[in-house]
């Protein structure tokens, strides 16, 4: 019962509409950039990508 109430409370909580939309987008972009930077780093280190 307590857990159910806590779950309900968590579901009811929300940020303002702007943050509700902006935060997941920002996190997605950051994760995509990390992956991109890592691919680039590995690519350069392994000689698969040639700078310049």
């Amino acid at each position, binding site marked *: 019962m307590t857990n159910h109430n806590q779950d309900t409370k*968590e579901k009811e*909580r*929300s*940020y303002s509409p702007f*943050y509700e939309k902006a*935060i*997941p987008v*920002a*996190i997605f972009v*950051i*994760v995509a*950039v*990390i992956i991109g*930077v*890592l691919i*680039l*780093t*590995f690519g*350069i*280190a392994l000689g698969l990508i040639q*700078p*310049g």
Partner: protein
Amino acid sequence: MDFVTTYLPFLSSVISFIFAFFVLKRYAQRRKNHLLLWGIGMIFYGIGGFCEGYYGFFGWNDLVFRLWYLFGAILVAAWLGQGTVFLLAKKPWPTITMVLLGLGSIYGLFRVFTAELDPSLVTTSIHTGSELSGHAIVTSGVRSLTPIFNIYGTITLVGGAAWSAWIFFRKRVLLHRTIGNILIAAGALAPAFGGAGSRFGIPGALYIGELIGAILMFIGFWRATTPMKADQPEAVIAAAD
């Protein structure tokens, strides 16, 4: 001599040292390992910026180059990331990785300070020579240390901040920490972006990336440690700290 290669890195350096002061002040109050490591990491960041500014103003100096390469190119991201490991990872991982990072840092120190340098190699087909570059290191194997440390640092620092932001977002708590962590992640990525741009010969990319990174991480840290009006109960804040 231009603004980007002289004043800009000095500005990054000053911001980093001020940031380090606030982080270490918080460490003095709370005695949390992650704050100590972030403080040390920001001092490394500041040393890196100072060396870049020194080179822009006064030109080549062996010691300044070695300090820049060790602290600014090899260690900074990894030590900042290690702070995040202490904050987020379960025992015994923080201790194990800290030992490895400590040993790796000593090895890096030895390699950098015994490496043979050729200042003329700072200028390459894609680099004007107005910015510091690891190309000046002649001894093989030294430069290959950099991606190892930086990949570890990027994954732990940026990944950790993004993960924290996601956790807070999913629970819809502590908005200031969600925003702060996103800014920290974005700030930590900025020098990586700059470094990549520099490798592709974009003038000033590294120094601009470092300045943006220092500013964003500073704002992110301030935001994450300063609750907003509509934030959650104190018990949750304590648990997240």
